[in-house]
């Protein structure tokens, strides 16, 4: 009996009226965990019941603790008929199972009903007593921490990064069970919510076990997804990166966490190539390797790889791993060997992380992706149905015992794809894949499985197993700046080390870390695809490709020029309606063309912005009844290490036609203007390098680069910035038919964001590092009807493009009050719920930044025309603070010091204050004192404002009397605590002091009175608001004040307007954290976490 769960039901408020006669409710509560249920007394005739129950105690084993959610049901007692359910609260008690996270869950939770939405709130206190030492449990995995964040969490240090963990669990979807025909929609929804909650719990526990086996203690970059396969069932799958994390014991201000600026975090031996001349490498354009496989049945799988155009461009010579290190220097060989041995034991050397400790990432090869089309084929097992219909409601079945095929099939599907990814990475001379993610798109019985990542060469030191730990520690002690400064190191140690590293930054530095990752990992003679290599524009020692595509975030140490921007490629392809295998075949045939198109679009748009690298690339292919949609989002940047991109040149097909010629030249002018404008907009002014430094052009086997419709050529003359015609460095677009014309037109339709706005889909906006604390996370959903009678690919493309552009435009308009600001982590999700319907959901966060400071910050570095990106200005700023106090090291950091001074002078004015003063001034004089009143909500009534004879002593007993005749909401003195939400892993201007656990919630909402609830928009608007509210309430109850790495993984919306019905499923996740404002940190450094903790049982956090 390893655990005791204790639950106390305190009170309810704002309950709905359940008894029309009295306008009141006789509420009681059922508390259920596993198979045990407790009930509170009925609190009669009140909408604000005070149950103040005893502690309900559940004695359970820890496996159950991990799997089961605590289920609280609020009911209305009815003497004569069945009790009516008011609503439910599911509480995931997982955060209480690790020692460092939350110790108590206490607060007001919205009472949620799948038909009526939120109906009042309930105050609950939950505690867990674990009897044994956590580490002794093996059947459960209590104590393994989960993080959605795709970087090493801020207050931790990575001791070892073990690698990929994955698991999937399958069950029948309750919505499709026979029993669903006879039960109410509410019962069906609740069964589904509960089942998914159970499955997530089980999945998490199983992953936890794998982590323990690997001797890790945490999963970072945990991504859990649902595949609603309809008739064939429900799959819950998760991937993550197992790590051994150490909590940094001291989180106070002077310690920079994992993401300190690169200069201090210099990685020494591997970036300094001792023998640069012998080190030859190969080129890289953004790489995409895909294979399309389609298996008509589970047993039979036909590989139809290399059917796609990209691959046909790709000479397969480099596929063997033996070529690696052939030409490389001895050091490189050593590195390879080390890393390979470290990764060898692993089936899949994948990492779901997108941001890494400095030095972890040695080289980046390019994007690798694989897709596969599968037919969902449910094996109908009568035994299964019989058991599911049994009394024990959806307790998870171990599917293996019933149907040995099922999970194997899904597992096998994914294993196949992962294998492919692995081999693609190998072809790029890389032994690992970072920024790895998986996704599916399902339509009827066809499913597209996709996986993508970035092939990379990693530093093996992070990958050692436990045996190597001692060695690692040792290295740490003499190479302190290298990765996450250990907590054991005090200020004193830290100081001279940073001086060391600063001296390493000297001008004669051979290979600055800002470009190391750009250097090609593959072998120049065995290039996996044609690309143009030049010597790195930063160190001029090693070779770099002309363009780099990746799925990861921009590494902190990367040197970028100007700012980044969101780049999207959008594409529609019509498809014939077909059944089963024919359908799957036609989809597989279309996929390569779509990939190619998307890739071309991305490349064109990147060139159009004068940039040369993409980060955070995410390509979604969505399958619908009669079309396929592709949406790729990425953040374009100009990497200083890569060559300046050439322009785009249009080549007409019929040069003799005069008007045509004119048209072409007109287009060309427009394109050139756009490029020039974009360069100005994104402040891309690369340094002008004297030609001799660049060195002789690399003898390039140019004949290999056959021109297809588009082809990039690298520029040899870097100084050449004008975009005149006929230059060979230009990117040629041949207009050979109307399609191509359309494409060119569509290139130019992308409107840049209005001034004051920037957008990106990565964690940070390259080129902006002076965030102010104001953030606004939002979700926008649009469903549009493509109302063409005879749709063509072109019109569909245009419609889809307009839809996305308009959506972005509307976001800019909505958030105009936050200018200057940046939309970060813009995440588009496309779904095709029905014929002709396109659903786009966007989640992003708008962060304000200080414009004045930006200018100041820009000035200093632009003298060198280089800028460093930084995740966290806080960390960057703290660091120079330490350095500047030392006279010796202050010199090289003078620009940084300026930034710092600018920061300190500006951070004093919170953005919120500025904003409110503007719009509030109109009547501020009238009610400023009254705001205070609302804030404090003082209960004591001040008397005698008119007649002064009243004494204060008399006032207090009266205060109770005033309101006696009316039922006034109880606990009016509690203010709702503010919970911030962000898809990013950090909060600007704040320090995360504690991770409280993962938030992973799944909700269903259904209505049978769609019109009455304001139509589809009203329905979904309310539902999304409710989901936010429930997430915030859970975080607040854990004692947190923010959710980071928030993501809406699924938003499935279905409507039936004729029946006045709609249903929506939303799945969200994130990490609950406690943060402290930087400014507060200075005031109370000793125990910052305590400040944000709820004080009383009622969970009244005042922030």
């Amino acid at each position, binding site marked *: 009996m390893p655990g005791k769960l204790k639950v106390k039901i305190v009170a309810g408020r704002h309950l709905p009226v359940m008894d029309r006669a009295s306008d009141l409710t006789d509420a009681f509560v059922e508390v259920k965990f596993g198979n045990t249920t407790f009930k509170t007394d009925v609190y009669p005739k009140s909408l604000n019941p005070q149950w103040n129950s005893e502690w309900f105690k559940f004695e359970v084993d820890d496996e159950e603790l991990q799997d089961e959610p605590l289920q609280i049901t609020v009911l209305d007692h009815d003497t004569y008929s069945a009790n009516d359910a008011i609503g439910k609260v599911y509480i995931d008690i997982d955060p209480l199972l690790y020692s460092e996270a939350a110790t108590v869950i206490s607060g007001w939770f919205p009472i949620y009903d799948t038909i009526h939405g939120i109906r009042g709130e309930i105050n609950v206190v939950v505690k867990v007593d674990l009897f044994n030492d956590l580490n002794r449990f093996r059947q459960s995995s209590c104590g393994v921490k989960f993080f959605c964040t795709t970087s090493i969490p801020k207050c931790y240090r990575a001791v070892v990064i073990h690698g990929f963990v994955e698991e999937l669990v399958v069950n029948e979807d309750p919505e499709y069970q026979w029993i669903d025909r006879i039960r109410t929609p509410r019962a069906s929804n609740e069964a589904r919510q509960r089942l998914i909650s159970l499955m997530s719990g089980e999945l998490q526990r199983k992953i936890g076990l794998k982590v323990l086996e690997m001797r890790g203690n945490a999963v970072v970059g945990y991504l859990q997804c649902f595949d609603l396969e309809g008739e064939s069932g429900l799959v819950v799958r998760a991937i993550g990166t197992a790590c051994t994390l150490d909590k940094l014991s001291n989180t106070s201000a002077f310690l920079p966490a994992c993401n300190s600026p690169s200069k201090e975090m210099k990685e020494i031996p591997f970036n300094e190539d001792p023998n640069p001349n012998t080190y030859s490498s190969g080129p890289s354009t953004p790489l995409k390797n895909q294979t399309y496989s389609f298996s008509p049945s589970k047993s039979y799988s036909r590989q139809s790889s290399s059917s796609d155009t990209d691959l046909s461009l790709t000479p397969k010579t480099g596929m063997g791993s033996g070529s690696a290190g052939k030409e490389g220097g001895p050091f490189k060989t050593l590195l390879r060997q080390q890393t390979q041995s470290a990764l060898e034991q692993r089936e899949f050397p994948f990492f779901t992380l997108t941001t890494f400790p400095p030095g972890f990432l040695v080289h980046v090869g390019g994007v690798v992706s694989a897709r596969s089309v599968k037919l969902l084929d449910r094996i109908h097992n009568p035994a299964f149905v019989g058991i599911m219909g049994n009394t024990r409601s959806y307790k998870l079945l171990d599917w293996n015992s019933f149907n040995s095929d099922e999970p194997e099939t899904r597992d096998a599907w994914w294993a196949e794809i992962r294998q492919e990814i692995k081999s693609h990475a190998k072809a790029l001379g890389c032994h690992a894949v970072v920024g790895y993610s998986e996704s599916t798109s399902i339509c009827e019985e066809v499913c597209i499985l996709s996986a993508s990542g970035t092939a990379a060469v990693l530093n093996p030191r992070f990958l050692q197993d436990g045996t190597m730990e001692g060695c690692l520690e040792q290295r740490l002690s003499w190479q302190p700046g290298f990765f996450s400064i250990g907590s054991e190191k005090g200020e004193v140690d830290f100081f001279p080390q940073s001086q060391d590293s600063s001296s390493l930054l000297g001008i004669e530095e051979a290979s600055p870390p800002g470009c190391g990752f750009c250097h090609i990992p593959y072998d120049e003679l065995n290039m996996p695809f044609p690309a143009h290599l030049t010597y790195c524009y930063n160190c001029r020692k090693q070779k770099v490709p002309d363009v780099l595509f990746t799925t990861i975030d921009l590494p902190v140490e990367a040197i970028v020029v100007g700012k980044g921007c969101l780049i999207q490629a959008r594409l529609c392809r019509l498809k014939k309606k077909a059944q089963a295998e024919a359908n799957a075949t036609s989809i597989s045939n279309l996929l390569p063309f779509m990939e190619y198109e998307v890739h071309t679009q991305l490349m064109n748009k990147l060139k159009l912005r004068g940039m040369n690298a993409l980060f955070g690339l995410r390509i979604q292919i969505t399958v619908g009844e009669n079309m396929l949609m592709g949406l790729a989002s990425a953040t374009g940047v100009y990497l200083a290490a890569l060559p300046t991109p050439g322009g785009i040149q249009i080549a007409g097909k019929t040069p003799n036609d005069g008007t045509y010629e004119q048209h072409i030249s007109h287009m060309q002018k427009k394109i050139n203007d756009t490029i020039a404008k974009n360069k100005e907009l994104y402040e891309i002014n690369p340094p002008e390098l004297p030609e001799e430094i660049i060195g002789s052009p690399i003898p390039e086997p140019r004949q290999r680069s056959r021109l297809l419709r588009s082809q990039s050529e690298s520029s040899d003359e870097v100084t050449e910035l004008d975009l005149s015609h006929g230059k060979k460095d230009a990117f040629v677009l041949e207009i050979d038919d109307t399609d191509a014309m359309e494409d060119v037109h569509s290139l130019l339709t992308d409107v840049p964001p*209005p001034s004051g706005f920037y957008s990106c889909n990565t964690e940070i906006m390259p080129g902006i590092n002076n965030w102010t604390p104001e953030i606004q996370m939002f979700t926008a959903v649009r469903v*549009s009807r493509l109302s063409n009678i005879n749709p063509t690919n072109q019109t569909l493309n245009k419609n889809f493009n307009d839809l996305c552009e308009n959506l972005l435009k509307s976001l800019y308009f909505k958030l105009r009050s936050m200018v200057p600001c940046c939309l970060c982590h813009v995440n588009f999700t496309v779904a095709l719920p029905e014929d002709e319907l396109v659903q786009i959901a966007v989640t992003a966060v708008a962060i304000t930044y200080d414009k004045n400071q930006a200018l100041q910050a820009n000035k200093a570095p632009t003298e060198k025309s280089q800028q460093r990106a930084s995740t966290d200005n806080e960390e960057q700023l703290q660091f120079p603070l330490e350095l500047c106090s030392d006279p010796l090291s202050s010199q090289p950091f003078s620009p940084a010091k300026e930034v710092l001074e600018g920061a300190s002078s500006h951070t004093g004015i919170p953005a919120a204050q500025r904003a409110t003063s503007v*719009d509030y001034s109109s009547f501020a004089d009238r*009610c400023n004192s009254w705001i205070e009143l609302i804030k404090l*909500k003082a209960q004591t009534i001040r*008397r005698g404002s008119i007649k002064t004879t009243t004494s204060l002593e008399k006032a207090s007993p009266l205060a109770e009397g005033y309101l006696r005749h*009316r039922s006034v909401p109880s606990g009016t003195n509690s203010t709702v605590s503010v919970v911030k939400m962000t898809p990013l892993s950090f909060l600007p201007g704040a320090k995360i002091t504690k991770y409280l656990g993962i938030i992973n919630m799944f909700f269903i909402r259904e209505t049978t009175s769609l019109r009455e609830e304001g139509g589809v*928009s009203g329905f979904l608007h309310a539902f*999304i*608001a409710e989901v936010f509210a429930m997430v915030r309430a859970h975080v607040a109850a854990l004692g947190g004040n923010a959710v980071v790495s928030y993501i809406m993984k699924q938003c499935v919306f279905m409507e039936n307007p004729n029946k006045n019905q709609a249903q929506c499923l939303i799945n969200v996740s994130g990490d609950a954290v406690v943060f402290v404002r930087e400014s507060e940190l200075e005031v109370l450094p000793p125990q910052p976490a305590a400040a944000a903790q709820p004080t009383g049982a009622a969970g009244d956090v005042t922030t």
Partner: protein
Amino acid sequence: MSSDLDVFVGNTTLIDEEVYRLWLDGHSVAEAVARRLRGGLLEREATSVAVLQSDTRDHYRTFQMLERLLHAPPRLLQQLLFQIPPERQALLVQRYYAFDEALARELLGKKLSKGTKKELDEVSARTGVGIRSCRRQFDNFKRVFKAVEELRGPLAENIQQLFLLPPSLARDYAAIVFFANSRFETGKRRLQFLSFGDFAACAQSMMAHWSQGALAPEAAEPDGDLPKSFLQDLKELKVLVTDKDLLDQHKSLVCSALRGKISVYNELEANFKALSRALVNVGGKLTHARDVRDFFVDLVEKVIEPCRSDKWSPGDLRLFLQHYTAAPRNLPGFRHQALWERYMAAISACLLRMFHD
């Protein structure tokens, strides 16, 4: 391509003040979009009409969902559905309960019933306030009235407590409740020159000086009702006009005090008895509900109009009331000085406020 569904939900609820005002004024989405267009938003933000429509619809939906909570502002503070910074919550409440004085003036003293609500069409036409806005404001009055009508203690503070209104707005609502409760007649032609502000000030003085709470906080009666015992006692003051000696002495005391200090001395001397009778009798009649209604009519007809026709200045009136109130202290045999001063404090305040063109 039409958008069937289009929503934007922020973790912090976005409130656009301009759209909120348009919504409060009762404009439909289409009207609101048209007005925003006229405001030049399109040019300023370089956006499209479609974006503006979508934005307006989003805000309207938010406001519709918020409206339920605005009916009980403390719930707005406690609710978890919308995360709104306190100053924004304050703004929402304040704007929601703000009212057009022209409308409030029309409704002062009327019963806040369904019947009155049906007449709002006419009121809307007269005041130029949109009918939907009229209905919302009327419902606000009624809601506040219902919430506080049985509560003890100072009206304004109860309202402030229950509706989280700024003090000045709470006082205005207290006046509306007070008038609705006592049903004072305010619609007569000769009262038309009085604004809502005048009546509100009068109501505040009356509550401040006359209500039960003003003297004894433990009082059992709500502030909105004038205390019965007090009104009953006012009858005792009639002695000032019924007793010939007292009336004469009162007059001579006042006249001797004002001689040379007041420009309308002669008129005062001539009219003193009539004025005094009017002032005292207004109070004496307050016990009967029917007479209560005529309170302001009487004051205007019997005090303000005669004074105005005699060309009194406000300063004259102030001096007169001051001495008129103080004089009975020196009257032998008058035992109700405290009651008298309490009565006259409110009457004086009302008269001084009402004495304008």
